[in-house]
């Protein structure tokens, strides 16, 4: 990517982060891309992302490199660190120099580990849309001095775009589930109608009478009507159901 002018890199990053409505969407892969865009576009050494479930548990991490991912995973386990604070308070964590007494007081395990890994400072931005927070983004520097404000705002903009992408994808996949339920409901109605006709022929009766027989069988055997209908059509139904009407 360094060959591209900066404006084009930026545009490409935003387009990439909006592109979530694909068949095989993988949320961790997507957040990994967010971390990589941050490192490419901002003056930071590494980026890490923590993701929460819809019920609010922080569960998984993605990062621009493996050491940062390990650090983020450890921070979930320790229940401390900038991402966790940012997620809980739903607001950004401004620049914190890591090799300080204050940082160590705040994050007794996270801060020393981050220094050990080679980082000098960190900021965190929430993955937030309105009051809905789905995770948080950490930006790490390995050189002296804080991240400047313009860069921080750009980082937040990337995080915002990614958040909309993830929420949109979640909404769609929920609707896919409802659509599947609707399809199953319609299919079962169709199967019941087909089985009525099938039974009517096998038993030599009318369609309504066949339906009565099928319903009674379902009730007597405590089986769902749709299941009985399916058995009728697949030829696996009880022989007593299929025999011609006795007279």
């Amino acid at each position, binding site marked *: 990517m360094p060959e591209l002018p900066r404006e084009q890199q930026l545009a490409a990053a935003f387009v990439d982060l909006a592109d979530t*409505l694909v068949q095989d969407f993988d949320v961790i892969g997507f957040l990994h891309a967010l971390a990589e865009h941050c490192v490419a576009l901002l003056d930071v050494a590494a980026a890490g992302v923590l993701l929460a479930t819809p019920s609010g548990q922080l569960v998984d991490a993605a990062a621009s490199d493996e050491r940062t991912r390990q650090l983020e995973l450890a921070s979930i386990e320790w229940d401390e660190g900038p991402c966790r604070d940012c997620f809980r308070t739903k607001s950004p964590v401004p620049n914190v120099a890591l090799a300080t007494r204050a940082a160590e007081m705040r994050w007794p395990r996270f801060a020393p580990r981050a220094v050990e890994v080679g980082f000098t400072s960190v900021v965190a931005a929430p993955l937030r849309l309105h009051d809905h927070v789905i995770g948080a983004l950490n930006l790490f520097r390995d050189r002296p001095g804080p991240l400047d404000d313009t860069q921080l705002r750009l980082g937040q903009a990337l995080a915002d775009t990614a958040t909309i992408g993830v929420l*949109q994808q979640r*909404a*769609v996949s929920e*609707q*896919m589930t*409802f*659509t*599947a*339920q*609707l*399809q*199953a*409901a*319609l*299919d079962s*109605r*169709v199967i019941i*109608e*087909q*089985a*009525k*006709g*099938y*039974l*009517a*022929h*096998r038993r030599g009766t009318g*369609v309504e009478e066949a339906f009565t027989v099928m319903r009674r069988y379902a009730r007597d055997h405590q089986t769902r009507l749709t299941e009985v209908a399916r058995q009728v*059509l697949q030829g696996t139904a009880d022989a007593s159901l299929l025999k011609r009407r006795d007279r």
Partner: protein
Amino acid sequence: MTHPVLADYLRTLSSHTGPGLAPLPLGACADMLGLDGLGLLLAPGESPGELVQSFGEHTLALEDLQQVQGHGPTLAAARHGTLMLLPDVADTATFAGDRWPGLPGAIEALGVRAVFSFPLRIGVVALGALTGHRVRPGPMSTDQLTDAFGLADTIAQIVIATAAHAELPGTSLLDDPGLHFAEVHQATGMLAAQLETDCDHALIRLRGHAFSEGRPLLDVARDVLARRLDLEGDGDTG
């Protein structure tokens, strides 16, 4: 903006206590859109599509015709999410004749001159289509089109909300006769038993017969159910 007809309906929905969903006011909606009939086809996921609510004397025949021919504006809107506006089916200069040979003439023979199909979609999720028709040709006005888009969106939301909340999702969307093509499915099952084949194949035979005889699918289905029609020696038509 929600049209008054829909606003009224949404109010009845929130105070509706009976089982299932209050029937959609398709008659009032047709009036609002300047149409003579409206039909709601549900085709979620891969399902072939079921007419579940219908208003107007030609609606059933219009959908039947598309079932027999296996294509048409309703199915295109439902499957591909494309808007289908046919302001005059007798106009041979439009795409309809090339795309669906024989269909525009058959629609005109029903006494229908204009057909408009609106996809029911939420984002990329396809749920079905809302198809309206008029016995007189002519385009819908911009206001009518705007209302129709709003109606299709509202119905899509109702459908998805019903599927999400109903104990028996989907069934509560069916109006009184339930599936309008229930007899077609019954005849399919009967034929499958007669021919000792599966329902998919039986339905193809049923459609093939309707197509080759130029008859509505529902009529052929009723003949099968009344044992007036024997397709056993019919061979593979269509």
